[in-house]
């Protein structure tokens, strides 16, 4: 929704500038068609300022608008929609959701005003509470959420390595592996076993 409002805003501003630029340009050309065409270098430079500025604005404004839209998407991606759908703010599109529309409008206004990300975050947290964060903050009690998977992995990996080491120690001597009476190298016996395993598998 905010993308739309931002885009609309840009279209309006852009068209306004284009119109201003056009009229300025026409006025200049009308003047340059008269006898004052070579009065001074300074005055001609002054006359060029309007069209050049227009061209610069024409080139820069879409980039600026795109940056604003990207910023809305980037910051909006860090918040949850507060309607209870459990979706990211910029992704909530479920039918009839008025909450995401108003939140995005508010976010768009703050981005257009040039508010910092911290300020925007503070405003949303004050308004909706800490549930507005899309992911737990990496401070305080919420840090546990981030540390838990790493902790599980490290503990799990330590357990796996412990058991592998323990089970390797339990390994009997290689001579005991081949059954008595069969004169076959351990390597060939191992290959035979693996083929037997493979072929007897159901």
């Amino acid at each position, binding site marked *: *929704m905010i*993308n*739309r409002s931002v885009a609309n805003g840009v279209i309006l501003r852009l068209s306004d500038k284009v119109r201003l630029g056009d009229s300025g340009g026409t006025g200049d050309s009308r003047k340059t068609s008269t006898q004052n065409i070579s009065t001074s270098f300074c005055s001609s430079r002054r006359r060029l300022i309007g069209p050049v500025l227009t061209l610069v604005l024409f080139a820069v404004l879409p980039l600026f608008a795109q940056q604003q839209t990207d910023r809305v998407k980037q910051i909006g*991606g*860090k918040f*949850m929609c507060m309607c*209870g*759908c*459990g*979706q*990211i703010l910029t*992704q*909530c*599109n*479920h*039918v*009839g959701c008025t909450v995401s529309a108003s939140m995005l409008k508010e976010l768009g206004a703050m981005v257009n005003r040039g508010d910092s990300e911290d300020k925007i975050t503070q405003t949303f947290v004050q308004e909706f*509470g*800490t*549930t*507005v*964060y*899309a*992911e*737990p903050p990496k401070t305080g*009690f*919420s840090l*546990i*959420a*981030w540390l*838990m*998977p790493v902790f*599980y*992995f490290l503990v*799990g*990996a330590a*357990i*796996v390595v412990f*058991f*592998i080491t*323990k*089970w*390797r120690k*339990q*390994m*009997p001597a290689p001579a005991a592996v081949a059954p008595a009476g*069969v004169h*076959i190298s351990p390597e*060939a016996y*191992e*290959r*035979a076993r*693996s*083929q*037997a*395993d*493979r*072929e007897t*598998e*159901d």
Partner: protein
Amino acid sequence: MDVFGSFTLLLAFVCAIYALVGGIAAIVTRHPLLVKSTRQAGMATCVLIFIATFSLEYLLFTDNFSQAYVVSHSNRDLSAFYKVAALWSGQEGSLLFWSFLLSVYVISVLIAYRNKNGELMPYVGVVLAGVQTFFLILNNFVESPFKTLATVNASGALEPFTRMDGNGLNPLLQYPEMVIHPPNLYSGYTGFTIPFAFALAALLARYPGEKWIHLTRKWTMIAWCFQSVGILLGAHWAYAVLGWGGYWGWDPVENASLLPWLTGTAFLHSVMMQEKRGMMKVWNVWLVFCTFMLCILGTFLTRSGIVSSVHAFANSHIGPWFVAFLGVTFLVCFVAYVKNRDYLKSENQLDSMISRESSFLFNNLLFLVACIAVLSGTLFPVFTDWLTPSRISVGPPFFNKIMIPIGLAILFLTGVGPLLAWRKTSTDSLKRNFGWPIIVGLLCGVAAYFLAYRDTFSIICLVLCGFVFWTIVMEFYRGAKVISARTGMNVLLGAHELAMRNTRRYGGYVVHFGMVLIFIGLAGSAFNSDVQRPMNLGESMKLGPYTLVLQSADTKAEKNYTAQRMIVEVLKGNKQLMMLYPEKRQFQGNEQGSGTMVAIYSTLREDVYVVFAGMDQDTNLPVIHAFLNPLVKWIWLGGVWVVMGTLLALLPNRRAQLATALAPQPAASPIVQVLNPSVTLREGHD
């Protein structure tokens, strides 16, 4: 019919109690008649549940609006197709559907093994009856689907009444996939009851050997397949109906379905350690126990209202029942384990760190870490609510950050595992087996970079996909070449013959191939883009290389809804590709309002996904929200391969049948035959 349904449910409960209590008595007394009668009581329970379920369907089909459930979930205009689905669209009906699907499994098991495994089956029957009893308590006394509408008359007595029409089915559920997604998912959840029952029964009965694993392998694969298909169908439903442009939002209900899938997948791998090497017996038993308990936990999360979700059923008071059942289940499993743990003594020996066994251990570690991470992330908001003054949301960014590395590590092991030999892998074997897959993987990474898929995780993912894909190709090619050399058939036919000779192993590789396709699809999600704006008729907007032109709009009146439809032309350059019809539907007789119907132009490269997002309040123009989602189609194709692989793995081996036929022929020297020089032996086989 409502009284009949209610009565059969009550009778089913009585039979289940008899099967449970009588079964325990039969185990203690070992009286053959008691054993037989409790088995028959178990079968009668199932038949009665079938009748009760069909009674509810009959009430839905005959528009019996004297019934509360029918009024809440159906209406006269609802098509027959969706009247079937109305059975599982509400809390009461879906719990009955749980009992129904569980009964399909139970009766199949009781019939299939009626004259086999006499020592084990009474225990299995008792465990199954225990689970059925729990659900029948809910069906009969907590969430009965057969409640009659009544009003209090002037004298204060209850007087039944009938409504003219019902409220209708939730619009989000009126989509073909919702007719098949829940049955698949529930079949997965309920299916894991069978390996659980056999594992617990084997432990209680101290049943010798690995027989319980052989008995339950196919049941586990069937449940796993249903669960996988259910998850993928749910993802597709979310993609095609909810209209937010994605397929997986890490919603608590989605997570709940993923939890038993993760432990079930770990079990399907680790069970090979027990079959081949007699290892990890304790681990396997607990993996099955946990998978079943996670199924119950998932159902509890969906239905208790403990976590908020758009998918969840309305809050109800069944939460404590599930907590109690989980507690009892854990207690029974724990006591059984403590009393009989010596029965699970394993022959744990490892030759080398670099072996198939080690890869399975790390595979299990990653699946378990993934499961615990998803579980703790899902429940973290509940814990913060209890322990701190503020509530915290744990949304998709958290899960993506945690799960992407774990998923990539699992994908890596999917490629590595089959290349490692049981016991020990030599350096030569490593060089021989890993060389080409690594080269192919790197080439895939380079190709991805030049195709503009420039995201770190996506490139790593595509490199690993190439690596795993080539290991699978090599496995098929090497085996097929041997068969081709022996029989003279071409390599493709040889690959077919190979797969049919060891369906489990090669079916597993086909499943791995399906997972590779799914990961390719997931890698594309980093490059999703979208554009949204109000559009006038004839106006166009750019979406990547595509141009979308809003050609016209119309209204379509169907029996159960009226759709406002946008007609959007998709062009690439000047070439017309397709006409898309995104809709917004207003359902009649439904208090839950409207729904969307997304229109998708899908190719292997990307999806053009168009949503009609309503009318703009300022301009009163239709708002079109269009997404460009690369590689999504690969996910659904991957799902098809996963199913095909599982079906292949369920087939009996062709070689096994031949071996049985040739069994009476005496063999002069088995060792010499095994070492037939014409066979090229190599390490790394299953």
